[in-house]
C-alpha cells in the first residue's frame, strides 16, 4: 500500500512536471497570442497543483487567484486593447543567427544552472528550526503568516509599497482612467453579482482570518475581494476611476497602517515593527485587514487601468493626466 501510493505520487509529479513544461513551451511558441494567454492561465492553475505538491498551500491559493486569475485577466484585457485596431499584430522572431546564439546561450545557462541545482549541498534546517521555536511568540500559528508579517514583516511592508506604486504607475501612463463597457451589462451577470458578492466578501474575510492558523492571509483575501471588485467594474456601464474619492484612501490605507504600526512600535519598544508579544496577533490582524483592503483596491485599479479605453472621450490632456482627479464627477 505504502509503495503503491508512493508510486502514484511519483507518477503524478512526473506527469505534472511534464505538463508544466509542455504548457510553457506551447504558450511561448503559439503564434496566436490569445491562445498563448489562455495557455498561460492553465499553466498558472497547473502551477498551483505543483505548489500543493510542494506543501506550499499558501502559494497555491495566491497563484490561483493572482498568478493565474488576475494576471490572466490583465493579459486578456491588454490584448483586447492592443488588437482592436490592427487585428494581426506581427510577432516576428529575431534573425536566424540571433536565434542560434540566443538558443545556445540559454541552453548553456540552463545547463549550468541545472548542474548547480543537481549538486546543491543538503539544505540546512536552521531556518525552519528558528521559525518553529519562535512561533509561540509570533502571535499567529501559520508559519508562513508569521514570516510574512512578523519575522520578515519589513519585506511585506515594502511590498505593499510596490503594489501602491504599481497602481500609481499604471494610472500615470493611462491618460483617461475610465472604463466603458461594450454594451449594457447582461442581466445574468447582475444576477451573478447579487448572488456572489456577499459570499465573496464573506470568503475574503474568512481567508483573512484563517491566515492566522492555516494557509490564507492578506494576499489571498485581497485577491478574492479584488475578484469581486473586478466583477463589479465589469458589470458597470461606466466606471470612472478618477471620480472615486474612496479609492485613493483604500489603496493607501494598507501601507499607511503598516507604517504607523511600525513607527509606533519603534518608539514604544525600540525596534521597528517589534510587536509586543501579547498584542502581536491583534496587530497583525489589524495590519492584514488594512492590507487586504488596499491589495483588493490596487488590484481592481490595475485591472481597470489596463482595461480603460483611452479612445473614449478624454477631456483635454492636462485635466485628465492625473491619478485621482477630485474635480471630476461621474457623468
Amino acid at each position, binding site marked *: 500500500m505504502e509503495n503503491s501510493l508512493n508510486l502514484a505520487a511519483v507518477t503524478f509529479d512526473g506527469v505534472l512536471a511534464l505538463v508544466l513544461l509542455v504548457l510553457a513551451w506551447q504558450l511561448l511558441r503559439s503564434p496566436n497570442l490569445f491562445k498563448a494567454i489562455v495557455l498561460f492561465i492553465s499553466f498558472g492553475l497547473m502551477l498551483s497543483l505543483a505548489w500543493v505538491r510542494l506543501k506550499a498551500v499558501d502559494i497555491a491559493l495566491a497563484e490561483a487567484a493572482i498568478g493565474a486569475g488576475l494576471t490572466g485577466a490583465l493579459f486578456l484585457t491588454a490584448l483586447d486593447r492592443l488588437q482592436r485596431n490592427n487585428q494581426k499584430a506581427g510577432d516576428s522572431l529575431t534573425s536566424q543567427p540571433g536565434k542560434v546564439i540566443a538558443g545556445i546561450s540559454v541552453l548553456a545557462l540552463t545547463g549550468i544552472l541545472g548542474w548547480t541545482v543537481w549538486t546543491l549541498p543538503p539544505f540546512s534546517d536552521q531556518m525552519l528550526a528558528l521559525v518553529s521555536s519562535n512561533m509561540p511568540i509570533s502571535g499567529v500559528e501559520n508559519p508562513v503568516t508569521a514570516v510574512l508579517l512578523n519575522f520578515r514583516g519589513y519585506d511585506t511592508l515594502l511590498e505593499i509599497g510596490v503594489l501602491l506604486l504599481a497602481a500609481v504607475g499604471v494610472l500615470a501612463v493611462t491618460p483617461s482612467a475610465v472604463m466603458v463597457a461594450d454594451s449594457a451589462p447582461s442581466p445574468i451577470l447582475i444576477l*451573478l453579482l447579487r448572488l*456572489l458578492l456577499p459570499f465573496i466578501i464573506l470568503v475574503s474575510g474568512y481567508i483573512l482570518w484563517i491566515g492566522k492558523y492555516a494557509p490564507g492571509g492578506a494576499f489571498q483575501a485581497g485577491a478574492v475581494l479584488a475578484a469581486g471588485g473586478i466583477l463589479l467594474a465589469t458589470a458597470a456601464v461606466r466606471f470612472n476611476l478618477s471620480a472615486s474619492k474612496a479609492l485613493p484612501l483604500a489603496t493607501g490605507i494598507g501601507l499607511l497602517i503598516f507604517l504607523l504600526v511600525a513607527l509606533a512600535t519603534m518608539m514604544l519598544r525600540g525596534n521597528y515593527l517589534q510587536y509586543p508579544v501579547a498584542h502581536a496577533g491583534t496587530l497583525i490582524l489589524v495590519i492584514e485587514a488594512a492590507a487586504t483592503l488596499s491589495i483588493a483596491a490596487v488590484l481592481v485599479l490595475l485591472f481597470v487601468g489596463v482595461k480603460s479605453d483611452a479612445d473614449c472621450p478624454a477631456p483635454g490632456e492636462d485635466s485628465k493626466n492625473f491619478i485621482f482627479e477630485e474635480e471630476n464627477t461621474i457623468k
Partner: protein
Amino acid sequence: MSLTDLFGSFLLLLAIPFFWGGSLGLLRFPDIYTRLHALTKADNLGLGLVVAGSILISKEWTVGVKLLLIWLAVLTASTISCYLIANAARKRKINPWKIP
C-alpha cells in the same frame, strides 16, 4: 476500508469518464457552442461525483459542508460564465456549427 470508503472511491472513479469526455469534447468538438456544452455538462457532473465521493470518504461533517459549498459555487460560476461566453459569441455573430 469501510463500506462508505469503498463507495466513495467508486464515485471518484466514476467521475473519471465524465471528465475524460468533457476534456475530449473541449479538444475535439467543432465550435464554441458544442465545446461549452461538453465542458459544462460533463465536467459539472464529474465534479459532482468527485464531491459526493469526497464527502463519503471525509470523516468530518464540516469538511463535507465545505465540499458541498465548493460544488455549489462552481456550479453557479460555470453556469453563468458559460452563458456569458455563449452570449458574447452570439453577439459577435459566430454561427453554430451544422452537420455539413
